Structure formats: structure tokens, C-alpha cells
């Protein structure tokens, strides 16, 4: 085999390789696109896991998916209903703003507690923090993938 045949062979393989390189770029673009869509589509932002609930509504151990805005209280119009004798009908609101979660007390009788500290107006909270509404204690956790 002379040099020309070899270089011709290399050139021809290079063509196929370049086609596949182009193809790889496309598939990478599609994959990224698909992943961002899957991540953004209808998935809960986080969840609240019920640690303790003496009256059983909600059940201890229950996992509550969270939206960007979640109202908490005894009234049935709340997105998270805590049917506890020590909870107010409009008790608190849990929101996701930018990159952080915030909890705000809505003038409840017995107060909203974050890690044992009373929430006066609003407080930021992170994953693993414990929230108490009435007698119900809940932990903020990441959404399950």
C-alpha cells in the first residue's frame, strides 16, 4: 500500500467520523433539551414529610408534594390541610422564591415553629428543617427523582 492509498483511506474514514461527530452534537443537543423538559415538567419542587401527628390527620410518615406556593391550615381550601385541634384555619404559607424556601405565619393562634423557633413574620428554611404547625411536625425534603 502506498502513501496515497492510505491517506485516501484515512480521508474517507474521516468523512464518516465527521458525520458521526455532527450526529453526536445533535444527539447531545436533543438529550439536553429532553432532560431540561423532563426536569421542568409537572414535577414537585420538594416535599414535606410528616414526622409527628398525634391526631393522625395527616398520617405520620406521609409525604406531601410541594408547589411553588403552598398554604397550610385546617380549612379545606388550603393546599396542605392540617386537621389538628391546635392549628388555625389559615395557619401559614410555604413558598419557593428564586432558589430558597420561605415560611410565613398568617396570624395563627398557636404560631408556626421552625426548628423550635417561632416564626414571627417569615423565615427562610432549607432542606432537613423541621416545621411545626399545631401539634404536627413536618420536615422539608428534596423531591424524589
Amino acid at each position, binding site marked *: 500500500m502506498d502513501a496515497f492509498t492510505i491517506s485516501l483511506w484515512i480521508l474517507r474514514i474521516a468523512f464518516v467520523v*465527521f458525520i458521526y461527530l455532527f450526529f453526536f452534537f445533535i444527539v447531545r443537543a436533543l438529550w439536553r433539551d429532553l432532560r431540561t423538559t423532563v426536569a421542568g415538567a409537572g414535577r414537585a419542587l420538594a416535599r414535606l414529610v410528616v414526622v409527628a401527628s398525634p391526631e393522625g390527620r395527616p398520617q405520620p410518615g406521609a409525604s406531601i408534594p410541594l408547589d411553588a406556593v403552598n398554604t397550610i391550615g385546617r380549612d379545606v381550601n388550603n393546599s396542605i390541610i392540617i386537621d389538628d385541634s391546635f392549628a388555625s384555619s389559615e395557619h401559614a404559607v410555604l413558598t419557593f422564591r428564586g432558589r430558597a424556601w420561605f415560611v410565613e405565619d398568617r396570624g395563627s393562634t398557636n404560631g408556626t415553629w421552625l426548628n423550635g423557633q417561632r416564626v414571627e413574620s417569615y423565615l427562610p428554611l432549607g432542606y432537613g428543617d423541621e416545621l411545626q404547625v399545631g401539634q404536627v411536625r413536618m420536615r422539608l425534603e428534596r423531591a424524589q427523582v
Partner: protein
Amino acid sequence: MAVVARSLNRAGIRPRLRPREMLLLAAAAVALVAGWASLNSYRAGRLELGDLTLLTIYLAAIASVHAAFVITGRRMDQVLLPAVTMLGGLSLLLMERLPQTLAAQSFMGTLLPLAPLQLLWLVLSFALLGTIAIVVRNDGWLRRYKYSWAVLGIAMLLLVFLFGDVIGGQRLTLRIGPLAGQPSELLKVILVVFLAGYLAENRALLTGVSTRIGPIKLPPLPYLLPMVVMWGLALAIVIVQRDLGAALLFFLVFLAMLYVATQRASYVVLGVLLFVAGGLVLYELFPHVRVRVDIWLDPFADPLGAGYQIIRALFAFGRGGVLGTGLGAGLPQVGGTPSIPAIHTDFVFAALAEELGMLGGLAILGLYAVIAERGFRIAATAADDYRALLATGLTLVIVIQAAIIIGGNLRLVPLTGITLPLVSYGGSSLLVNAIVVGMLLALSDRGVEPPPLPGTRRVWLRPLRRAEQA
């Protein structure tokens, strides 16, 4: 510069970069230049790039389409254009490689051989693609006049029936003055436009059940009528026009869109049964159908006659192997005649698979898969049913056509004479597929007008609906 930007702004145009598209186009250009070098080095017997004029013109046309998208600031899909660019580029490479006398046509006084002619069509197609993608901002003109479009389509078909030229036993070509075209190419787009409108409007009715034949649940029978008409149309195309490929394409697109709109498998089963029944009858009655099926089942029964094309194509696939013979090194012609008749139209896939091998063939299949993914994604994120069905149908037209002809080349399905979209030689085919891709791009634009509010037209449907609820 600032002056230009200000005047653009005043006209409501905000340029927006499309980095992903730019990267992909650059990658495609690199691959095509490598292919060009490979072809010309083989021909010249030494390493050289060869005359890059044709490729440069092609890439410049693509670049100007990209630039037009950037300047007008359209937020459209960024993957479709590169995928189509690659297919068109492979087409140009192949046409440059094939014997130039396969199709020569004089254009404005100069005789253009195969490759420059294909380049001319490609450039016109991409210009059309870009224009449609940029200019089309609402779909009312398609949505509102669906029956008018259907009538236009059928009128075109009738014109071909009556005045068409017979070329190669098929009555496909319509000649008006110096222009010749194949209206059945455009007909497939019109079909999709009509079906999308009809199905989006009657979707709820079609999913309802009012008639039962044994275990098969059917919608109210009057709404099945268009489907029967479609089926009849497909048969008519086979009988009068002798165009098996177009008939198969229409019917498959129709069934797939029906399934997408209603999600009812029973329609598909029913359609396939009708298709098989129709096929059997046609096989018995019409010799040209019988020949097609017979050479598919056993091409070696008549290796120098009816089976010649298919056998040559199979040999070409075999010669190509995994890596291919390399561009220019295949055997598309023996002596002066091409080894596979219609190698530049129906058998482009065989030609490319011979010279680029199985790897090249798979890459081409992959490109169609990419177009399918993008198209269905555009459909999935569409603002309403009509746009979703339109995008689905347009995607299916390209993908199913590719599947039919590639399957035919590989002897997986009976060979039917249709083009490989965006690769085969031919003006009508290229222009129509460019329209399809252009409309897909326009549909993917996030800045287009929202669809009109659902109206309360079609009052004559009311009594039926009420009867159904009672």
C-alpha cells in the same frame, strides 16, 4: 452598526443569536468538506480538495438562511436546519459523484448537468424554507380553509389524471408551459393540512362510540365517511396514476394521524384490514401491482428484467459492507450506463450505502430519526390540537416517505417509486419537503400568534351531539 440596530429595533426586529444551530451547521460543513475532499482525491489520484464552487454556494445559501433567522430574531427549533443541511449536502455530494448525464436540463439558456441542477433546486428549496419559517406567523389561512385546500388537492389530482404526461409508466408529471412538476408531492402536504383541520375539529366525536360491530367500537358513522373517501383516494391513485408509493404514503400518514388524534387502536386495526383487503384486490386485478409484489418476494426470478433494479441495489449494499467503498469508488455505472436505473431518484440510499457503507446508511437513518424527534417534540409543545396534529402530520410525511423508500431499497417492503426526502434528485420533491420543514420551523417558533379561540361554528353538528348524550 448602531444605526442599523436602531432601525431594526424600530421595525420591531430584535436579532437573537442561535448558537446551537451555528455549532451544528459548522460541524455539518466540516463533514461535507471532508466528503468533498475524499471524492475529489479519489478521482484525481492525489490528495486535493477539488473545485469547491458548488459546495461553497450550497453552504453560503445555508449560512444566509441561518443569518436571516438570527437577524429576524426567531425563537425556532435549532436542530432541524442542521439536520436538513446534512441531508441536502449528502445529496449534493452524491449528485456530483454520479454520472452528470443522468439528468441534464437547460435552464435560462445554459445546459446544467446533474450536480449544478440539484444545487439550483437545493438553493431554491432552502430559500423557500427560510421564507416560510420567517414569514408564516399565524395558521388561520390553513386552519380556516381546510375544505378549500382539500378541493384544491383533488383538483390537482384530477388535472394530472387528465393532462399528465406518462413517464416510465406512471402518470405523475404535469407540464404547464416550461414548468414541469409532480403535484402528488404537494398533495401530501395538502392532505396533512386537511386532516389536521378535520381531526382537530371532530376529535371528540371520533373518540365517541355510537356503533358497535361485534367487539369493534366505531364512532358515529357519518364521521367515518372522510376516512372511506381517503381510502378510495389512495386506491384511485394506485389505479389511475400507478403511483404505489404515494398511495402507501397517503394511507399510512392518514392512519397515523387518525391514531394520534383519537388514540384508538381499533381504527388502526380497521385501517390495516382495509389496506390488506384493498391490496389483495389490487394484486389480483392490476398487473403493475402484481409485478411489484412478485419482484419483492423473489427478485431473482427475473434477474435481467423486472428484478434487475432490486438485485443491483442488493449487490450495491453488499459491496458497501460496513465502512463502504469510499466516495467515488463504488460502481454506480458500468460502461456508460448506471448500474441501478433511477439511482439518482429512487435508489439514492443504495448508492450512498455502497460508498459510505452501513455506517453512512445508519447515519442517514439517524438524521431522519432526529427530524422525527424534533417534529414530534414541536407537536407535543404546540399550543392547541390543530397545531399539534399539523406538526405530527408534517413530520410523518417526511419520515414515513423515507421509511417506505429505504425499506424498498433494502427489499424489506415492495419497492415503490418515491423519492428519499431531501436527498433524491428532483425539484418538486425538494421544494415540497422544504415547505414541510419550513412549516415545522414556523410552528416551533415561540413568538407566533396564539391560536384563535375555539369558535362555535358547524351548527349542523349539534343535533347529532345531543342525540349522543341522551
